[in-house]
């Protein structure tokens, strides 16, 4: 009998534990349906913390990139820096004590700065090639700046402003600037004089350029029309001769013209001939005109004296011969 019970016990041990437990009356530990009341609030470690399931993160793409890959397709457009996409050992940041600058991983400074990784030279070349079909060749006849200025004398400038914001409109884009060479209008002396009086300080004497700026209308097209209207009106107004313009006397002239003044007649009286035939008259007329136009200063006075001496064939003074102008 004793032998039998022992055999039974041994055979039970061989059976799988869960099966054995199912037939057993003893407490089954943490899987027990009826939990013991925890009065003293003793910590029970049977309930383990819920394990946070970590998602598998792939290694950075840069590990798999081929050396001869097409970078333009990896980084096709502008975007913020991402270390897993850029296979360059970039570092940015300031560190003290000779430590290396922070590397590209988790580096916010690299994300802040604008990058041009989408505009590498091969990509620019490719884009230019693609744009070529929309371009027309430059006219062969317009090979020099002189020819360009001759055939296209008017230069219109307006600016497009690229601002960040929901609207692309900018109030400053309405301003239109018109620039042209005064020579290209082919005005005679009288009309040119009137034109200059009309434009005032919009004419640059050194470059012979007239600049008209229009910004009074709200739209660029309106300003453009206005500027062209101004040009037309100026041209025709300066060509027109009003009856009161005939009353302009020598005193109203804005500059000294030697051929129309008493100086010329006096010289002709002295030499008893036409002023073109007198030797050294060019120098004299220049000197007189300069003296009257520029005003009295040391230079004009000296030049005038020298011209008079040349004209009248008088000896030069020592001072002048020592210091020729």
């Amino acid at each position, binding site marked *: 009998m004793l032998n039998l019970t022992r055999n039974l016990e041994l055979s039970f041990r061989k059976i799988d534990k869960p099966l054995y437990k199912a037939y057993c009356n003893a407490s089954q530990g943490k899987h027990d349906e009826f939990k013991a009341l925890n009065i003293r609030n003793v910590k029970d470690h049977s309930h383990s913390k819920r394990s946070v399931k970590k*998602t598998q*993160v792939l290694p950075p793409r840069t590990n798999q990139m081929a050396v001869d890959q097409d970078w333009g397709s990896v980084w096709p457009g*502008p*975007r*913020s820096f*991402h*270390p*897993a996409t850029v296979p360059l050992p970039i570092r940015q*940041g*300031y560190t003290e004590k000779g430590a290396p600058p*922070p590397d590209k*991983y*988790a*580096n*916010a*400074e690299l*994300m*802040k*700065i*604008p990058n041009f990784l989408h505009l590498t030279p091969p990509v620019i070349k490719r884009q230019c090639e693609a744009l070529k079909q929309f371009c027309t060749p430059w006219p062969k006849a317009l090979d020099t700046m002189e020819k360009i200025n001759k055939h296209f004398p008017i230069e219109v400038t307006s600016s497009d402003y*690229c*601002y*960040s*914001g*929901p*609207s*692309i409109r*900018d*109030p*400053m884009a309405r301003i239109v600037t018109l620039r042209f060479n005064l020579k290209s209008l082919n005005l005679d002396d009288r009309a040119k004089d009137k034109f200059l009086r009309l434009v005032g300080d919009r004419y640059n004497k050194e470059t012979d350029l007239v600049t008209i700026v229009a910004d009074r209308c709200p739209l660029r097209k309106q300003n453009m029309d206005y500027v062209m209207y101004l040009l037309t009106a100026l041209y025709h107004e300066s060509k027109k001769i009003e009856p009161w313009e005939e009353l302009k006397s020598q005193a109203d002239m804005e500059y000294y013209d030697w051929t129309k003044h008493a100086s010329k007649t006096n010289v002709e009286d002295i030499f008893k001939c036409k002023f073109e035939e007198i030797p050294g008259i060019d120098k004299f007329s220049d000197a007189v005109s300069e003296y009257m136009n520029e005003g009295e200063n040391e230079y004009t006075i000296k030049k005038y004296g020298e011209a008079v001496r040349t004209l009248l064939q008088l000896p030069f003074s020592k001072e002048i011969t020592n210091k020729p102008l």
Partner: protein
Amino acid sequence: MNLPTSLKIVSNIFRSQTGMRFVHMSPILEKNQAGRYRTTPRKNFPLTYEMANPPHQIAHRKSWNSWNTSNILGGNRPSETAVEDLFIRKFIEGTWHALFLSEIIIKRQHNLIRIAGLVNRGVLPRKMYFLIGYTEELLSFWLQCVVKMEIQTVADKKDVIFKYI
């Protein structure tokens, strides 16, 4: 103490018989404190690179967190841009709660707003993709601009720490 006596005492505080004033004011301590952190005794206060450099180092050691053309000379709508940037920061702080480990970088190009920053991998990627779409959609509706989130995820919070003070 009746009222006239107390008034007399008060007036004496301000003006003694010798004509001196007894109320003293110390000069103003013009000390810059914004954006600067104090060292802790155990030197265990973590700082990111952004925090480690005080504001006067902007454009020297660190750059701006907002990039736009509103603050250049003659730029348009500077006040609107500033308020919008503040709104974006607040919105993202609430939407991506405790996920952003860096400052929120806002870069504007034309009508495009790029929002960049370092994000902790605290939530599932699926949720993060949702948050990206949610933020982009709502912000672009409110700001009437194209909004793009360009985030970089970081495995551990300690990755962004530059030094301890």
